Structures are given as structure tokens and as C-alpha cells.
């Protein structure tokens, strides 16, 4: 048995599942303009997008800048008990009922959250100044960086490793739009069958 992916000079399939720490480490996000505004009371930041666009990655990266803030990942059916915290980070806020959300709004000064649906009206009514950021990595060069960073992260040793070029990124965009998770799934299958170090093709 050979060491895994040694024929590609990699340690593992770069498009397999990463743990949250690794995702934070590899996040390519644009949060420069919003990175300080949560320190101001009464601000709500919502990261808006469909599944698989990178909302959680954005929220995790922002949370890196506020390590003291409470971070909660909400699963369907969860009924978290929201004690008062200055800043709450809520992943998948739509998984709690409107009644619970109102309770959350009363118990926090500022909020950052991910959501599929625009909650600005509701947040405004609760007294927040709302900053909405639609998450979409549609820029070819950013996507190229995101994917090549993941390949680099799985590097085994010195020397060449497979590379993703702009032609491949454009083909993936034609197939999947801005759905990064589907692109990653496609690339996972590609790397399972890749026989040698080369530019990756669709």
C-alpha cells in the first residue's frame, strides 16, 4: 500500500471534508469593510446566501476577530437558551422560530448571523442597524485562489503539485454557477482519479 495521494505529492484529497479549524485557516473572505462594526452596539450583520456558498466560512472568519463573542451553531429543532451577551454569532439563524429570534434580539447588543432569507426588516424592527452581505464567490481569480490554497494545504513535500487554472474555473462556473460546494464535490471526484501531477481538467 502506498502513502495516500503520494503520486500527486499530496497527503489527502484536497477537496475532502475539513474540520472547522482547517476551514478558518483556509478561508478566503472579504470582511475588511465590516470587520470592526460589531463593536458598535445595535449592529446586526447578516451573511445571506443559499446552501454551499460559504456563509459559515465568512461567519467563522469574522468570529476570529471577536474571540470573546458567543458563537452558536443552530441545528433544526434546537432551542438554545440565550443568556445576555454583548455580541452573538449565530450560524443558521433561520433554524429557530421567530419567537426565539425575538428573545435573542432582546438579549444581545450586536449580532452576526448566517441566513438563507433576508431578515433585515425583522432586525430593523428589533432596533438593529442592519448590514447585509450577500455571499457569492463568483470572481474567477478568487475561486482559483480558494481551490489552489486547498491543494497547497494538502501538499506532501517539496516539488510540483496539481494546479487549477482559470480555464477549469470557468468550466466549473458554467456547470455550477456560484455553488462552491458542488464545485468541491466535482473536484473531489476528479482528484480521486487523477493519475499524475498536471493541470486539472473538467
Amino acid at each position, binding site marked *: 500500500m502506498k502513502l495516500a495521494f503520494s503520486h500527486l505529492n499530496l*497527503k489527502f484529497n484536497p477537496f475532502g471534508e475539513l474540520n472547522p479549524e482547517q476551514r478558518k485557516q483556509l478561508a478566503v473572505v472579504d470582511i475588511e469593510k465590516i470587520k470592526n462594526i460589531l463593536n458598535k452596539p445595535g449592529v446586526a450583520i447578516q451573511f445571506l446566501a443559499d446552501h454551499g456558498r460559504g456563509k459559515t466560512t465568512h461567519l467563522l472568519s469574522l468570529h476570529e476577530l471577536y474571540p470573546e463573542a458567543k458563537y452558536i451553531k443552530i441545528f433544526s429543532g434546537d432551542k438554545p437558551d440565550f443568556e445576555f451577551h454583548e455580541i452573538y454569532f449565530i450560524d443558521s439563524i433561520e433554524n429557530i422560530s421567530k419567537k426565539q429570534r425575538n428573545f435573542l434580539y432582546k438579549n444581545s447588543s450586536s449580532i452576526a448571523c448566517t441566513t438563507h432569507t433576508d431578515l433585515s426588516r425583522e432586525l430593523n424592527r428589533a432596533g438593529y442597524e442592519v448590514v447585509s452581505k450577500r455571499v457569492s464567490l463568483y470572481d474567477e481569480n478568487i475561486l482559483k485562489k480558494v481551490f489552489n490554497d486547498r491543494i497547497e494545504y494538502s501538499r506532501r513535500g517539496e516539488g510540483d503539485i496539481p494546479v487549477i487554472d482559470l480555464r477549469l474555473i470557468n468550466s466549473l462556473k458554467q456547470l455550477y454557477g456560484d455553488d462552491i460546494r458542488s464545485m468541491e464535490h466535482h473536484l473531489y471526484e476528479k482528484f480521486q482519479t487523477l493519475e499524475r501531477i498536471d493541470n486539472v481538467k473538467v
Partner: protein
Amino acid sequence: MSKCKVVISTQKTHYKLGDTVKGQVSVEVDKECKCDALVLKKLWSTHGKGNRSSGGSEELKLFQGVWQPGTYTYAFSFVLDEGPYSYHGHYINIDWYLNARADIPWAIDAKDELEIILEKDEANPVENVSGYQLHESGENPVSIHNIGLLKYLPLLFVVVGVLLMVFEEMPIFGAIFAVAGSVAFFKIIQSSIAERKLGDVECLVDVANLSAGDRVNFTISFTPKTNIKINSAHVKLLGQEVAVSGSGTNTTTHTYTFHDDKIPILAQNSFSSGIPVRDKHILRIPDNAAPSFIVPDNKIIWTVVIEIDIPRWPDWINSLSIRVKP
């Protein structure tokens, strides 16, 4: 700030169960440097499509104190006395790692990781390999049919779904629960409906102590309640990797079938009421079969599936997981 570099080296990369991994951790520092702990850890971890699982962790503390500028080496040895064996599949991979970390106060920890392969010794196979976290299979053949009241379990999902829709303002989630519960309930009772024609079907699978290359005895018997024709009947031995990625509503289950051996059963296709039917077959577990492996989010499973296709009537379908020992 001082610069600290940690490198692990071993004599070889491939080991058998019971082997000792010998090596050294080299530390290079360019200025005086305090180290709260230099720890070497051995562990296995999965990688691939599922959330990462790990286990078998064992730690050695190699150093604590202050390094002056220079290079230091610390010898270590670990005995590889438990599984799982290294495995490289499609959605699931299992590998063993040596992980060294120097905990340096007020600085980023210096670390290194080295991957090793734990292989089965085909010439001298080990009888009982620990580390697979599987429950023991029984000694007696197992009947596939008998699930008793468990068949009503999916109705609980239907009830929960309805409650979520009515009382918790969660119509979409509630509807998904209710529909999934209804489909699962039908899947479970469809064999019971099929038995209105077939009579009670009993399948016996000899599950005790199965390993790669072994034969699995399989027997099916029933006494039809009516004269009945069938389109086809077969038994399958499936080997699958089941990897779960994400969590909560973002959970995705990825299934990859790496072995699918289908054998036709019941040579005839029409049966008379009241005449007992009995058929025996042997399934063969391939010589290179991956052992069963079950940890949260990553499973390598072996299943015997029996299907009887009845024209214009629900099919009789049932399955049983079997344990393939390492």
C-alpha cells in the same frame, strides 16, 4: 522572537500489527526558548468525504524546560498494538499519524506530522484485532425477517413532523419529517404486504466469525399462502463506504459501493399454495475485503440484501448487516 523547528523522522513508513515504531523528534532553535511541553502523539484519523474521525491516541511527553540555541533530538518508540489497518478507499481513508507539537508560550506552537501505514500481515494474520469498535456478532445464524415492533418506529417521525407543523411554526421541516417517516414506514411494511402472498419468509445468514475470503451460508424458506408467480429473486452481498459530511440541516451522506455481488435465487418462478420452498446458497466475501469499520460519520459496512420481485404487488426486500473481521 525565537525560531523553533520540529521534525519527526522514523526508520520506515510501513508497519505490521505488533511492530514498534522507532524514531526521533529533532528540534532546532536559534535563540533561547522556553517550552511548556514537547509532546509526541500517535493516532489514527480518517480523511475523505466525511467529517474527520480519529482515535487510538497515545501521547509521550519528550521534553519540558528551556532550550538554548542549537539542535536537540529526542528518541521515541510506540508499539502498534491495535487497529484499524490503514485503508484507502473512495470516500473513506484511514491513516495513522505521528504528531509532534512544541508548546511555546506566547508564540505559535512548532509542529510536525508524519504519516505511517499499518498493514495486515498476510503471512501471520492476527486473530483478534482491537480498535474497530464493533459489537460482537453472535454465534448462531441470524434471521433477517424478525424486526417485531421496530417496524412502527417511522410512525414516530410522522407524529413528530405533524407536531412540528402545528405547534412549532416549522412547516417545511415538519413536512419533511412526516413524508420521510411515511416512506420509511412503507419500505418496512412492504415486505409484510408481500408476505400475504409469500407466507412468512425466513432468511438465515451464518454471520459468525466472518473474515475476508470466507463463505457465508444463506438459506431462504417460505410456504406460499396462494399460488404465486415472481419476476425474479436474488441475494446480494454489498460492501459500502458511508461517509457523512456537515452537520444539522447541512448534513450530507455519501455512499460508495465498492463490492456488489448479485446471485439469482429460487430457480423456479411460480410456486403453489401450501408447498414449502427452501433454497440454499453460498456468498463469498472477497479475499481483499476491507474489514467492517464503524465510527461516527465514517462507516465501512457489509450487507446481505434479499429481493423478491412480485408482479403487480409490493416486493419483498430485506437486508442484514454482517461483520467482516479484520
